């Protein structure tokens, strides 16, 4: 019985690996269906790195540890502790960190700002109260143009929000320009 109850963390009865039946936890009474995979049975052994002998190549960060591989990006020797398998190659921690910082390693990105949603929000929400668009329409235009080339969310493929924001911002600016022109003409006629 290797599985544990997802609610109370106590041993949970799993009869068959592909059973469709829900089982009841004998401790907390929660009804759950648990799928167990071989990773649960694998021993969790973390590499520690072996101590280097004399005249042996050593890790760049751990001078007492024997080098186990060379970083595929910068060529530094790394021990078993530092060697990270990434994209089928060996990367050192510094190259990984630099890749994340410079946003070159999209596989490790854990958040993104959605500039297209910001632009669309800026174009639509203030429009409910009409008058704030006098300021927010030019702001939308700026945001859309400045961040046009910024990457979208990881799973977003199209820039329709940005395009819609631009169209709305231009329409709002057009609206205000029309108001000003009409008011100016009316004022001139009144004189």
């Amino acid at each position, binding site marked *: 019985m290797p599985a544990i109850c*997802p609610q109370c963390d*106590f041993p949970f009865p799993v009869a068959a690996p592909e059973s469709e039946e829900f089982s009841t936890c004998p401790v907390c009474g*929660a009804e759950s269906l648990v799928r167990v995979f071989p*990773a649960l049975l694998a021993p969790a052994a973390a590499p520690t790195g072996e101590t280097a002998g004399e005249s042996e190549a050593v890790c760049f960060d751990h001078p007492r540890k024997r080098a186990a591989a060379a970083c595929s990006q910068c060529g530094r020797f790394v021990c078993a502790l530092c060697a990270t398998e990434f994209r089928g190659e060996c990367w050192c921690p510094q190259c990984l960190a630099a890749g994340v910082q410079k946003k070159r390693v999209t596989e490790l990105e854990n958040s*993104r700002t959605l500039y297209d949603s910001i632009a669309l929000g800026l174009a639509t929400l203030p429009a409910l109260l009409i008058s704030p668009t006098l300021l927010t329409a030019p702001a939308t235009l700026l945001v859309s143009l400045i961040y046009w080339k910024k990457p979208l969310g990881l799973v977003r493929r199209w820039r329709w929000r940005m395009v819609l924001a631009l169209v709305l911002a231009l329409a709002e600016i057009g609206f205000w320009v029309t108001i000003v022109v009409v008011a100016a003409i009316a004022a001139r006629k009144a004189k």
Partner: protein
Amino acid sequence: MSGPRHYRRLPGRRQGLLFGASLWVAEDHVLSVQSWRFREEYRRYYFRDIQTISMTRAHDWLVPAWMVWLPLVAIGPAAILFRFWPDALWAWGWMVAAEAAWWLGSALFGGSQVKLRTAVGTATLKSLHRMRAARKFLVAVEPLVRAAQGPLPEGWQDMAPVYPPAAPEKPRAAEVVESAPPKGPLWAPPWLVAAGLAAAGGMAWLDLRGYSAAVQTAQAIAGLLLAGATAWLVLGRLWKRVATRVTVWGVVLAIVMGVLAWMRNFVPELEQLIAHKAGNPATLRLTTSYVWLQWATTAVGLGGAVVMVTALLFPKASRKADTAP
């Protein structure tokens, strides 16, 4: 550097006014996307690391955004139709009642909580809050994980160490499931939001019956309660503490109530303006829409309060935070 990965959407999606969640699959991992309107956070679960996927029957009090918007959008056409078809009020009411009944049934019997366990922790997949979606997700992902990890070895049930090693005595099922909600100064209690909603709904009803003095008192009480609950929740969110779905939903209702109240005050002024400009008050009176808004406010307020109290009585599995092994 390789180009961006191509993700395929997995079943299950959660979309609220502020928070959203969805699941995507790439060739070697599941990507969990949690969006906070203008920001997305990602978590990757590689097939080779997934130890267990569990589905638990749970009550789910999440209200889909469309359930809030649909009655609000429908009330406009219903108000116009009311002039030609007096039963439009009832049609709208039946639609809202059917929607509420479907939601209540789904919340009580169709909810699920899916957890994914790896060697470093357990994560709740928030987009899989309905059992149907959870089953579809399992059908889509299980073969991929099995393909990456291979089959379970013979006698697997006796192989792995049990965590935790020994099972001590635990209280009976009912005592564990009905655990107390999280306490603390940064947690907005649902009763406060429920009380606010009930007061606001009562206020709208009194207003409808013509008790304007009582309305003013109730309005002040409701305003204070809702403002307190909202401030409490906003503080909680700022410090990233636990805020239950129930309370988040309550605050969304509070905002809806605010919009309705604003519209309620705005509509008579609009009527007067139109009537004055057109010079023909008899044909342009829109007082029916005022009554409609009153009814909507009453329904949202009192219905919300009932649901909040029901949620308090059935807290099973809806407030449990993620656990780490």
